[in-house]
């Protein structure tokens, strides 16, 4: 069973599926990006596939908002939506990205929820 890092609230949230090896700094900035837009996140540690897009797709399938974020061990990130095929995520960032890029991943996930342009 995946370990819950934050307790799922009564409200729907953007699900973050994080590989156990994912860097904490990436997780922090991604979650900050979602929070700045005023959308809640629930973070789950998933030991399964070490692939950001696959994790994001699985998270989006589980999220009641239909939006998931995946973080792999190397620090790559992806945002997915429940209606999209696995091969076409909303956005991805490579492992060697900078903190504004991670923040942007979170912001984009939140903006998919809020139906705002993805900038």
């Amino acid at each position, binding site marked *: 069973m995946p370990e819950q890092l934050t307790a799922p609230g009564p409200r729907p949230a953007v699900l973050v599926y994080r590989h156990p090896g994912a860097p904490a700094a990436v997780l922090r900035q991604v979650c*900050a990006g979602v*929070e*700045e*837009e*005023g959308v809640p996140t629930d973070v789950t540690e998933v030991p399964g596939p070490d692939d950001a897009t696959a994790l994001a797709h699985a998270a989006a399938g589980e999220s009641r908002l239909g939006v998931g974020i995946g973080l792999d061990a190397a620090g790559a990130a992806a945002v997915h*939506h429940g*209606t*999209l*095929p696995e091969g*076409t995520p*909303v*956005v991805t960032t490579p492992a060697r990205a900078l903190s504004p890029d991670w*923040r942007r991943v979170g912001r*984009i996930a939140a*903006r*998919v929820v809020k*139906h*705002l*342009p*993805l900038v």
Partner: protein
Amino acid sequence: MGAREGAPPEGLLVVGVDIGNSTTEACLAVVAPDGSITYLGTDLTRTTGVKGTPDNTEGALKAIRGALARAGRSAGQVETVLLNEATPVISGLAMETITETIITESTMIGHNPTTPGGEGLGVGTTRSIGELGEQQPGEPVVCVVPHGWDFDDVAAALNAAVAAGVDVVAAILAGDDAVLVTNRLTRPIPVVDEVAAVEKVPLGMLAAVEVAAPGRTIRTLSNSYGLATVFDLDPVQTRQVSPVARALTGNRSAVVVRTPTGDVTDRRIPVGELVLHGAGKTLRVDVDAGAEAIMEVVGRAQPLDDARGEPGTHVGGMLAQVRDTMADVMDVAGQPDVPVSDIAIRDVLAVDTFVPAEVRGGLAGEVALENAVALAAMVRTSRSRMQLVADLVSEGLGAAAEIGGVEGEMAVGGALTTPGVDRPIAVLDLGGGSTDAALLTREGECTAVHVAGAGELVTKLIDSELALGDREVAEGVKWFPLGKVESFFHLRHEDGTVEFVDQPLPPHVFARVVVLTPDGPAPVPTRYGLDHVRRVRREAKRRVFVVNALRALRQVAPGGNLRALEFVVLLGGSALDFEIPDMIADALAPHGIVCGTGNVLGTEGPRNAVASGLVRAHAALLAEEARCRSS
């Protein structure tokens, strides 16, 4: 004649070619000795080079060869190529803002970050976050946070200061962290973020920060008396700050800093006078007065002989710029240059517009809507510029080429092939640079006029009013209906219809206003909503084409009376627009006019009128000659 299956029509093979500002059209036909015409094919291609220059030859030959190929004929069979005599007008555009907002001494930040933090009003002295520790308790402080501070550190520093008794009432951040910071504060305060030039915020000055609840706008800083209350201003000072209040109206968040001489000025730029010569009079009008006043004066000076701007003013510069461009276009190799002073402006269309311009002295990329005036001007040229092209076409094709007739008259002839029309017929050619009208009376008399302003001006208005800064995008907004992408699988059209798509829409159009091009939805980079973009588009078209349609038709109508017109046929590229023909028809309906988009030859729509008109005129000429010979 070449051997073809079936009985090829007897007669001479002629091609009418219309070189327009943007497209070159050809019409291939066989003209029998009695003047009867058999149309064989048409073609359309992009005009190469500026209309009326030798560069046009390439496009003309391409269109001719295209029409020949469709009809299965060869160039050697062509008897005559007929070219249009270009409408003797060239048009130019200029736009100038007539108001500007300037912020001095960084006194005001009035922008709309998407996510400000907290709520309410905080008034205190501006202090850098690094100096918070040295702050005496009790005095209200507005904390200024430069770039590079992490949100956790900002929150910790503010919480520590509050714990030490410092009265932190608000914060101004450089980064996009306002919600993150407010979520971590022990005492909630309003926070404005995304202030790019935060280092320019003066420190040690009294400042007010206001953030409204989501969906609301600020109440205190956008009210002159609110500012007077906050900063304890006397009536003279209140009068001075009223532009600040006005500039902040409609924002969700704002910062106002009180500095000794800081100011926001909202000034009118003296644009100058437009001097119009015409109808034996010289009339002057201040461009500041707006489009309506200018057009009223232009109307009194009809027919216009020339228009000039007061030297040294903006309008002088605008018209000089138009004149210079026109002189360049009119210069023909091998002939002496056209002196700029000889170029007389024969029509002017003024349009009121507005330009969202970045405020000078702003700290966060603030944008103010400035008033502007756009002028389209038109000059007549006396030089025949098409003969040179005709010579080159003749050389390239190996067939005779001649000037077959004047554009306006030819267009009427072509328009008459539209099913359901009869004389008296007026055509409105909605082009790129000018709007042209021609009237053919029952007796066969033809008059033509040209007025300044057409498709190019519409594009320019859309471009500047939506602050797109990209002509191609503005063209897209002009040509295609709008939609809003509502999810990865559905989009809402501007009429409210919702369409589901099978393939996911790409993320770059998600939740955006898009134009529905044949290649799929393309985003319109604007923060305005669909309704606003639609209104701007329709207003631009109305102010140019509806105004010009009425202006041009009044000039050709007998006695200026629109009721004397019966059939009005719309031609030209803009007649293919999805709404302009309806807008013009609506405007003409009260005058009892039948108005619609032409359908030349019953198949070509509003295209090919001039090219097929050239063929018709040539056929009439041949028949006339035949009659003369036989009698």
